[in-house]
C-alpha cells in the first residue's frame, strides 16, 4: 500500500512489464507525460502503444534483463528516448521529444526467478540541452555562428577518410573579403562585425545542409563541400561571388558594397591530406587575389 503510493508519486516514470512484455504497472508520471491513462494500457502489449520499441536493440536489452538479471542502462546519447513524450517548457527549442535516461531492472519472485522487468524513465532533457549548447559553443565562432577552426581540424580528417573510403568527391572553397580592412578603418569595428555576420548569412543561404561553413580567420572563411566535384564547386563559388557583389550591406544608415575572392580545390584522394587540401585552396585564393580580386580561381 505504502509502496504503491511511492511509485505513483515518484518524479520518474515507472513501468512494469511481464515476461511477454504486457504492461502490468504504469505510474502516474507515465500517465501524465504520455497522455495514456492506466486503464487504457494495463494488460495491453507494450508494442501496441509503442511500436517504436519493437526493434532488436530494445529487445536485446530487455532480454538481457530477463535472462541474466542484468540492470541495463539505456543512455540518452544512444537512444535519445524510449517512450516518445513532448519535451516540456523552453527546452523543446532543441528537442521536440523529452530526452530520457532509462534503466531496466529484473523483478523476482520468492524463488529468485525473474518474473517481470521494471523500466524507470528519467527526464534528462535539460542536461542534454545544456550539453548540446556547450558543445556548440566550443565548435562555433560566437560572432558569426559559423564553425570555428577547432571544428574544421576535427572534421576535415573525418571527411577526408570517408571520401577516400567510398571514393566520393569532396571540395573545399576558401573565401576572403576584399579590402575588408577599409571597412573597419572607415566605419569602425562594429560595422565590420555586422558585415561579417551578414556575409555569413548570404553564404549560408546558398549552402546545402551537408555543407559546412567555417570562419577560418578574421575575414577569411571556408566551405567544406561533401559529394561535390570541382566543376560544381566552381559554379557555387561563382554564385557566392556574384551574390555578395550585388548585396548592399547596411549599417546605421550607411550602405556598403563589398566583393570577395575565392579559391577552390577538389580533394585528390591518393595524395591529399587535410593540410594539402587547405594549402591548395589557399593557393588558389592567393591567385584570385593577385589577379585583381572579386574572382574565383582553382588549382
Amino acid at each position: 500500500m505504502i509502496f504503491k503510493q511511492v511509485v505513483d508519486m515518484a518524479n520518474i516514470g515507472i513501468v512494469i512489464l511481464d515476461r511477454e512484455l504486457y504492461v502490468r504497472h504504469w505510474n502516474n508520471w507515465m500517465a501524465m507525460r504520455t497522455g495514456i491513462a492506466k486503464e487504457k494500457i494495463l494488460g495491453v502489449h507494450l508494442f501496441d502503444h509503442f511500436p517504436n520499441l519493437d526493434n532488436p536493440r530494445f529487445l536485446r536489452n530487455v532480454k538481457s534483463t530477463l535472462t541474466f538479471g542484468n540492470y541495463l542502462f539505456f543512455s540518452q546519447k544512444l537512444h535519445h528516448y524510449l517512450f516518445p513524450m513532448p519535451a516540456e517548457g523552453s527546452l523543446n527549442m532543441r528537442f521536440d521529444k523529452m530526452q530520457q535516461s532509462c534503466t531496466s531492472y529484473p523483478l523476482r519472485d520468492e524463488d529468485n526467478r525473474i518474473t517481470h522487468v521494471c523500466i524507470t524513465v528519467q527526464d534528462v532533457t535539460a542536461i542534454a540541452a545544456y550539453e548540446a549548447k556547450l558543445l556548440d559553443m566550443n565548435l562555433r565562432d560566437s560572432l558569426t555562428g559559423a564553425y570555428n577552426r577547432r571544428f574544421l581540424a576535427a572534421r576535415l580528417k573525418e571527411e577526408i577518410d570517408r571520401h577516400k573510403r567510398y571514393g566520393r568527391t569532396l571540395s573545399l572553397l576558401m573565401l576572403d573579403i576584399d579590402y575588408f580592412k577599409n571597412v573597419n578603418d572607415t566605419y569602425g569595428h562594429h560595422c565590420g562585425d555586422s558585415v561579417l555576420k551578414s556575409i555569413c548569412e548570404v553564404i549560408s543561404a546558398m549552402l546545402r545542409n551537408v555543407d559546412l561553413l567555417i570562419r577560418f580567420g578574421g575575414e577569411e572563411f571556408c566551405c567544406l563541400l561533401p559529394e561535390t566535384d570541382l566543376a560544381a564547386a566552381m559554379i557555387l563559388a561563382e554564385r557566392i561571388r556574384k551574390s555578395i557583389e550585388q548585396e548592399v550591406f547596411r549599417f546605421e544608415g550607411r550602405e556598403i558594397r563589398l566583393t570577395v575572392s575565392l579559391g577552390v580545390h577538389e580533394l585528390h584522394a591518393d595524395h591529399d591530406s587535410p593540410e594539402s587540401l587547405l594549402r591548395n585552396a589557399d593557393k588558389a585564393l592567393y591567385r584570385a587575389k593577385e589577379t585583381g580580386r572579386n574572382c574565383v580561381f582553382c588549382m
Partner: protein
Amino acid sequence: MAEDPREILSEEERDVLQEVMNICFGNAAAELAEVIDIYVVLSVPTVKVISADGLPNYIKTEIRDYRDVSLIEQNFWSKFKGAALLVFSSGAGKALLSIIGGSQNEPTLKSDPLRILERETLMEVGNILVGACVGKVAELLGDVVSYSPPRLLVGNLDGESLSENILDARNIVIVMQAVFNFQDRDVNGYMFIITNHESIGWLKEAIHVFLKQYE
C-alpha cells in the same frame, strides 16, 4: 594488515572457482548467442589473488599488447561485490556500432559526434557482457546482484581511474579474467572481474556449498 595473498584461497578453492567461472562464462556466452544474438567467445578464465596496490600494474602487464584501449568499469554489489573491468582494443566502438546500430527512434542528431556514439555503444555492449558473466557467477553461487551504470575510464590505467573501493591498498583482491572475442568482428578484449576482501568470506563459503553437490 594484509594477509599473504597466497593464503587467501587454497589451491583447491582456486581450482573450484576457476571451474565455476568456466561454467558460468560458457553459459553466459551460450545464452548471449541464443537469446540476444550476440556472438562472443570467452577464453577459459583464470583466477589470481594479488594485493590491491599491485592491481593497476598487473592489469597493465596483462594488456601490454594493446596500444589504444577503451576501459569500461561497472560495479556490482551484493554478497558478491566488486567491479568488472572491460578492456577493449581500439576501433572496437566503431565495429560494435555496426552490429548494434544507432538509435531506432530517429536519425542520429547531426550534433552527435561519432566518437560519442562509439563510446556509448561500448558501454552498452559492455553492460550486457558484464551483466551476463557476473550474473551467471552470482546465480551459480546462489546470489542476486545489483549494478551501477557502466562508466568509461579516461586516461591511463592508474590508481585514479579505478574505483576506490577496489583499490584500498590494504586489501587483497581476487582477479578473475578472460579474453573475449566477438565472432566475425575484429573486436576483442579482456574482462577482469575483481572482488575484494568483503566478498572473500562469502566466496569461500559459496565455493564449499558448490563443491558439496559433487560429494
